[in-house]
């Protein structure tokens, strides 16, 4: 089966020493249609930049240096600006982390959704309003008729995020990119939004690129997982592979430090240190400054990808397809 989205060797650079800092560095992944791929990693690993590169919305002065992004049978990176504008919203839509600031504060939310609809489809105002109403119901906004006329500041964070989702879904995109859709919300609201995304994905059969650092959300929503560290994908695999048979030390560290798996009363075993900023990235394996299993070649050579079978891949000097060190950490 050919994937809906196929990303190969995607590299995005910001001005810096040499050719520039590769904030996104040779990223490969694919998403099948109807599949949810979770992109996980700590803050500052380049997840958002990867997503924005897919939409060709990388903030200045960043630029996409190389790579290929295929959506369906179209090559996204070589599209004309106008064609790209039609792809955005229409085939790929994106929702952002901050529902508080993702809506224009001076325009009624219903109008914003209607504008999104009318941007890509030539429908009348009343038809667009009807569609907005349906969308509001579909994303579980109570009393949708009245909410259409509300201003963003009159809605709670959870409702705003639902409006954002309604807006993103308004043109029936094939791929929804959700960048930390629950991070800014209260825990109970988070669960509701996660459930909503799951139901929508099921009903509509769309693909989702879910960006998050919350492994609970990943576990609940995703089919496959890609783990990102310092601009590179370090491990990919099915959800079972990643949660049950993690191989990369970074993935294991993330799982160990997940509050959901914590033993009450014990200190959460966090990964030591913090994500280095791009200028401090070490040579060789970028995780080598924090890895507990670091050894000689790690600091010299960039680890090659090891294929562990059935789409489970890992970039680590310590992992080879034959060794099977320590299941489940």
């Amino acid at each position: 089966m050919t994937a809906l989205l196929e990303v190969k060797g995607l590299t995005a650079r910001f001005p810096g020493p040499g050719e520039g800092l590769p904030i996104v560095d040779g990223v490969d992944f694919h998403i099948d249609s109807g599949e949810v791929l979770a992109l996980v990693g700590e803050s500052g690993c380049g997840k958002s930049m990867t997503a924005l590169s897919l939409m060709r919305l990388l903030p200045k002065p960043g630029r996409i240096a190389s790579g290929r992004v295929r959506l369906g049978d179209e090559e996204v990176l070589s599209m004309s600006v106008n064609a790209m504008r039609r792809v955005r919203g229409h085939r790929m839509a994106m929702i952002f982390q901050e529902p508080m600031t993702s809506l224009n504060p001076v325009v009624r939310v219903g109008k914003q959704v209607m504008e999104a609809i009318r941007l890509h489809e030539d429908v009348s105002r009343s038809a667009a309003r009807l569609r907005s109403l349906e969308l509001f119901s579909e994303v579980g906004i109570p009393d949708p008729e009245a909410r259409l006329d509300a201003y963003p500041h009159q809605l709670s964070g959870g409702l705003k995020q639902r409006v954002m989702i309604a807006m993103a879904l308004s043109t029936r995109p094939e791929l929804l990119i959700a960048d930390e859709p629950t991070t800014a919300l209260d825990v109970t609201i988070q669960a509701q939004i996660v459930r909503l995304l799951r139901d929508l994905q099921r009903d509509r059969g769309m693909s989702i690129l879910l960006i998050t650092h919350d492994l609970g959300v990943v576990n609940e929503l995703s089919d496959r997982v890609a783990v990102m560290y310092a601009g590179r994908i370090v491990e990919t695999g099915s959800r079972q592979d990643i949660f049950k048979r993690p191989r990369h030390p970074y993935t294991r560290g993330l799982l160990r430090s997940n509050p959901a798996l914590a033993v009450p009363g014990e200190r959460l075993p966090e990964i030591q240190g913090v994500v280095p900023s791009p200028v401090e990235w070490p040579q060789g394996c970028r995780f080598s400054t924090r890895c507990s299993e670091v050894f000689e070649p790690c600091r010299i050579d960039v680890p090659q990808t090891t294929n562990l079978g059935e789409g489970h891949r890992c970039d680590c000097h310590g992992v080879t397809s034959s060794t099977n060190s320590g299941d489940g950490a």
Partner: protein
Amino acid sequence: MADWVWSNVVVALLLMGTGGVVFYARRSRMWTETFSDLWRRRRFAVLVIGFYVLVALLDSVAWVGGMDQGEDTVARYEAQSILDRLFAGSQERSYSAPFADVEFYGGAPLTHPGAHILGTDLIGRDVLYLSLKGARVALLIGGLTSLLAIPLALLFGISAGYFGGRIDDVVFFVMSTLASMPGLLLLIALIMVLGKSTVAVCFALAITGWVGFCRVVRGETFKLRELEYVSAARALGVSEFGIIVRHILPNLMHLVIITFVLMFSGLVLSEAILSWLGIGVDGSWGQMIDQARNELSRDPIVWWNIVSAGLALFGLILAVNFVGDALRDTLDPRTLRETE
């Protein structure tokens, strides 16, 4: 077309425009709240401004004929505004103090004894009438100049802030160049070049006045551009132009309103300075003050001219500043103060 026809057309357009703005603003909660707040806190100032506007309108609606001008044959073919008609025939042949029955010099009886509440000026014109007529000139200077300067500032400020790069460099260069010239000298030079008509003076004031607001717009746009709803709009496939019109501009409107109000009083004052230099607009309070200046040395002192013009000017400026201050408090607690 004759000037007076234009004046009537402008009045009609202004009234229609105001109606339209009110109609749209009523649907926006932010604006209805702002204005009800303003009404609550600064009712008197709003009413004062309303009075000036009313006087200016009365002085703007004009037509020819329908008046007995006596021997004055020229005036028969000249358009007279409602205000002119109200004060028709209140002309004296000479100077008189407020409420006077006799003229200032010879003590000869006046044609309208006791009727000149604020006296008359050197050539016998009623001072109240002149002071009221100044309202139209002041509003014209403030309004027309803002109408020129604010769009200019928005155009350049938004382009620079939104697109950055080369465009920003060019705009920044123009702004710094203008800002580095002494404002008053530039103003005088421009009026020398453009001529002394009302429109020319407004144009000159606009050219020297847009830079400050442009800087604010540029900075705000720069901030707005980075906001998530702009990214969200881009992710939905909205064009750059669409983003500017739908997302940047509406979020600058509060600054436009505040700037308009605050700029307004500054402009009216600038005109007074220009009048003092002899390059002001005919019929302005500035010109009245300038002409009355020499009268202060008479004995007994002739104070009513300068006091009337001064108070008329002062009243408008004070009311506008009160309103501007209240607007700034409600609409924008931060941006404009920072840049002052």
